[in-house]
């Protein structure tokens, strides 16, 4: 008997899980209709719990004037001010920066050429020239100074941490948790305390940026090191390499291209903080965007946003080219050329220090105002043309999908939702899923914003599903076709770095202030990172593996689904994680365009001091939602088995 039931169990193992999930959901819906409205833990907009008031009272306990923080502040301040003096601001008793525009363009192009290629050097010169023509030279240089400082500081911390997390499993687990916290805890929650710590000025803005921008570099470095084939490491060991040698000669060189993806993501994240940092007086393009948006001047805001995107693209391409460049010693001819170039740069810098035309960007060609007019016209045209139709789409999605999901989550008693979540996690991921799910659900109740969390969860789930589907499709496409990758990249960069409100103003006109608008914003922001990581993963699939599949007559679809996706599994798991986290990073922005709930709580906590505690609790709730969803998906991915074994699966 036993053996028969055993074999039956084996036979139905795969369908059984989905059946259990199905039954679970049906039971939940049935219970919802019975128990609707009980224990839903609703908390009104201005209402707070004792926990929130306690947090509000203790906001300033972190205090200021600590010697360590002061030292950090002074150090960072000096670093940023030095960069600003060199690039952006009148300094050292002169009415212009140390290096004028001509010198900056020449120097940047030279560096791009020396470390990358002449192509990116041209792109650099063109990009910088473009922002100058936009009439935004000084603002751009301020932003560039702050970004360079933030990115360098981020990498200084992130790369060693990433290597550590790549080598040690324990460090990896701790790091993942901390990074989730850093990426999903809304900046608004720590922006005000941060200015208490580090005072109003460049230091606070830089450090806020570092907190948000460093995680991708840590994650991707760790991911890269862990993806190096065991065989390579073992081969190195068997040849008698020490740990240090294995790291520097095998692990790091083999992970370089993925580490570069991490650095690029850090640059993108840093630039996406430009407008937020402007709220605490960070100089640069963020100020231009904010001031323009006070009067809803989309054109001017777009012009400044475009400058941010151009800077992002230049930085991204230069670092990518530098990462792809094979390490080799330069030929004599190249050395001569490099030397000649260096002399040219020095001449340009000398000019830019001597003559006004080379120091201050000439404002005769004002491209900026023309761009602003065009952007305004396009926005108006889009609003007038699609206005009625878009409301229909919004209502269909909201009534058909979002409202039922939200009703189920918010209308059920909290203990029912928590029980279902834990059960789902257990089915999908075993105890590895269930334990974090139980802990996170409990803590969510403790934050006192359970009801708002469920509203946000509904939108987040919907947005993440869209992000993953779109990101996978685009990522596979871009990973398989180099040309697609080249064309799609600028669009993705724009999605990540264009300040959200620039495109949210037309979105608001198209969809009104609603949860749908917030979901759209999250999708625009999160699809790029998912796409990029998936594309990187697909590209990393060994050519031989793909060719082997092709040679046995597999169709493209078979190659994708049976070979490339399974082999790139690790990258896809990371892409889903980052997609989710970027969606959650937009919850606050969503709250500013009608999503309400946690995003609004955080924004209100930032703006009204008596709601600070509630805002912080809401911020923590966003983190908890992130950890909860991430752990369930990770656990599910770990237990999931792919049909057939592919050699690369072991990678």
């Amino acid at each position, binding site marked *: 008997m036993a053996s028969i039931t055993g074999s039956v169990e084996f036979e139905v193992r795969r369908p059984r899980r989905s059946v259990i999930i199905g039954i679970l959901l049906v039971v939940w819906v049935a219970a919802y209709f019975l128990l609707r409205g009980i224990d839903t833990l609703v908390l*009104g*907009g*201005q209402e707070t719990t004792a926990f929130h008031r306690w947090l509000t009272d203790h906001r300033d306990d972190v205090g200021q004037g600590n010697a360590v923080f002061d030292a950090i502040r002074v150090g960072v301040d000096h670093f940023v001010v030095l960069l600003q003096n060199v690039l952006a601001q009148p300094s050292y008793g*002169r*009415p*212009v920066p140390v290096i*004028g525009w001509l010198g900056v363009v020449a120097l940047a192009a030279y560096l791009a050429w020396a470390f990358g290629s002449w192509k990116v050097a041209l792109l650099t010169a063109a990009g910088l020239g473009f922002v100058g023509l936009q009439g935004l030279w000084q603002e751009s240089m301020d932003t560039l100074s702050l970004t360079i400082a933030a990115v360098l500081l981020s990498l200084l911390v992130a790369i060693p941490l990433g290597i550590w997390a790549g080598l040690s499993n324990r460090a990896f687990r701790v790091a993942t948790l901390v990074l989730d916290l850093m990426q999903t805890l809304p900046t608004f929650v720590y922006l*005000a305390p941060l200015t*208490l710590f580090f*005072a*109003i*000025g460049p230091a606070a803005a830089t450090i806020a940026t570092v907190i948000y921008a460093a995680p991708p570099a840590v994650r991707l470095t760790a991911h890269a090191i862990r993806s190096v084939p065991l065989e390579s490491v073992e081969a190195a060991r068997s040849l008698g390499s020490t740990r240090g040698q294995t790291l520097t000669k095998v692990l790091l060189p083999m992970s370089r291209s993925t580490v570069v993806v991490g650095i690029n993501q850090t640059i993108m994240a840093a630039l996406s903080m430009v407008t937020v940092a402007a*709220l*605490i*007086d960070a100089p640069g393009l963020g*100020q231009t965007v*904010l*001031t323009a*948006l*006070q*009067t*809803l*001047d989309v054109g001017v805001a777009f012009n400044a946003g475009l400058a941010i995107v151009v800077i992002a693209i230049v930085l991204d391409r230069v670092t990518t080219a530098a990462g792809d460049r094979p390490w080799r010693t330069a030929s004599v001819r190249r050395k001569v*050329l490099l030397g000649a170039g260096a002399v*040219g740069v020095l*001449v*340009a810098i000398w*000019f830019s*220090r001597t*003559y*006004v*035309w*080379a*120091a201050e960007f000439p404002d005769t060609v004002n491209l900026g105002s023309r761009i602003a007019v065009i952007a305004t016209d396009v926005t108006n045209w889009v609003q007038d043309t699609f*206005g009625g139709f878009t409301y229909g789409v*919004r*209502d269909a999605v*909201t009534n058909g999908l979002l409202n039922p999901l939200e009703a189920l989550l918010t209308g059920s008693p909290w203990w029912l939702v928590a029980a279902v979540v834990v059960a789902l996690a257990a089915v999908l991921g075993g105890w590895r899923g269930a334990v974090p799910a139980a802990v996170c659900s409990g803590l969510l109740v403790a934050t006192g914003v359970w009801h708002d969390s469920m509203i946000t969860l509904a939108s987040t789930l919907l947005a993440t599903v869209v992000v993953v589907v779109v990101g996978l499709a685009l990522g596979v496409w871009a990973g398989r076709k180099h040309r697609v990758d080249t064309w799609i990249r600028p669009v993705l960069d724009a999605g990540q770095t264009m300040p959200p409100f620039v495109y*949210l103003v037309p979105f*608001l*006109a198209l969809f*009104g*202030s*609603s*949860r*749908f608008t917030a979901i759209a914003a999250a999708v625009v922001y999160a699809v790029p990172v998912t796409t990029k990581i998936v594309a990187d993963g697909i590209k990393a699939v060994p050519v031989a593996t793909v060719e082997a599949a092709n040679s046995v007559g597999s169709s493209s679809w078979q190659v994708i689904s049976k070979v490339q996706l399974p082999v790139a599994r690790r990258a896809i798991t990371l892409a889903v994680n980052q997609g989710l986290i970027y969606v959650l990073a937009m919850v606050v922005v969503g*709250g*500013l*365009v*009608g999503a*309400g709930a946690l*995003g*609004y709580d955080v*924004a*209100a906590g*930032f*703006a*009204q*001091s*008596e709601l600070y505690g509630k805002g912080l609790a809401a911020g923590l709730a966003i983190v908890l939602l992130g950890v909860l969803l991430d752990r369930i998906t990770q656990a599910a991915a770990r237990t999931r088995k792919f049909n057939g074994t592919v050699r690369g699966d072991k990678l």
Partner: protein
Amino acid sequence: MNKLRYAGVLTAAALALAGCGGEKVGADEPAASGAKDCGTFNLAVNPWVGYEANAAVVGYVASKDLGCTVVKKNLKEEISWQGFGTGEVDAVLENWGHEDLKKKYIEDQKVAVETGSTGVKGVIGWYVPPWMAAKYPDITDWKNLNKYAAQFKTSESGGKGQLLDGDPSYVTNDEALVKNLSLNYKVVQSGSETALIQAFRDAEKNKKPLLAYFYEPQWFFNELKLVKIDLPPYKSGCDVDPAKVACDYPPYDLDKVVSKKFADSGSPAYDLVKNFQWTNEDQNAVARMIAVDKLTPDAAAEKWVKDNQSKVDTWLGKK
């Protein structure tokens, strides 16, 4: 490719030669103006246009007439108040209530002092777009709101009428008001001023119904004259218990707050801030120049000061 490089070098050389005739850096450096004893004046600029108008004019007068070095810092409200304590902010020029901040920084920490009204009156309330007020004249009485509730339904309001709430910066009693006045409405958070203004633009242009929380003075009134709904009139004390509020918002006397250090410094800029007072019309005029005519704050201030020299003279005590 090599030719390209040489061509590049040649062009650079040609450019260099051509440029030699240009004007030199620092050639026309202006002589330092006869600075009076003012020093640096750190002015917080909170993110709305009305405030910017105040800051523009005060900053302009301080640097032109008093020779101060005016440093404007773009900050959110609460962070500006924090700056009083650390000495990074000298003055806040338009404060909307914020009793909690006053308690914390003026009474408890004693790092800030009030310096009186700006003369501008703030109004908070519920508004409808002009086309609605014209078509349904009785809508401006709150008692009739339930009659129109069905028109205000949206995908977000769960079958009730939608009352669109606004910027998270301001305290709202709207949830309590809806409950206590038994209105068949649901408060939906738009979450930002941007979203509110866009909603009103859309509503007026496409003749859509909209009921939303808004406030004056606001540059947007130059574009669209929104119509205020009359809630039960405000009486002193009717809003003591936030849960039982059933009356309109109180009129706000927008005031100025400065840091204690600045007040005691004897800086002429302090006297200017103390004496600074104008009207809603004055502020609107400057805000209009900034928001609609797209003047820089400085240019707008210069224009206004030229036309209102007598007011400026009173602020400077030159009467």
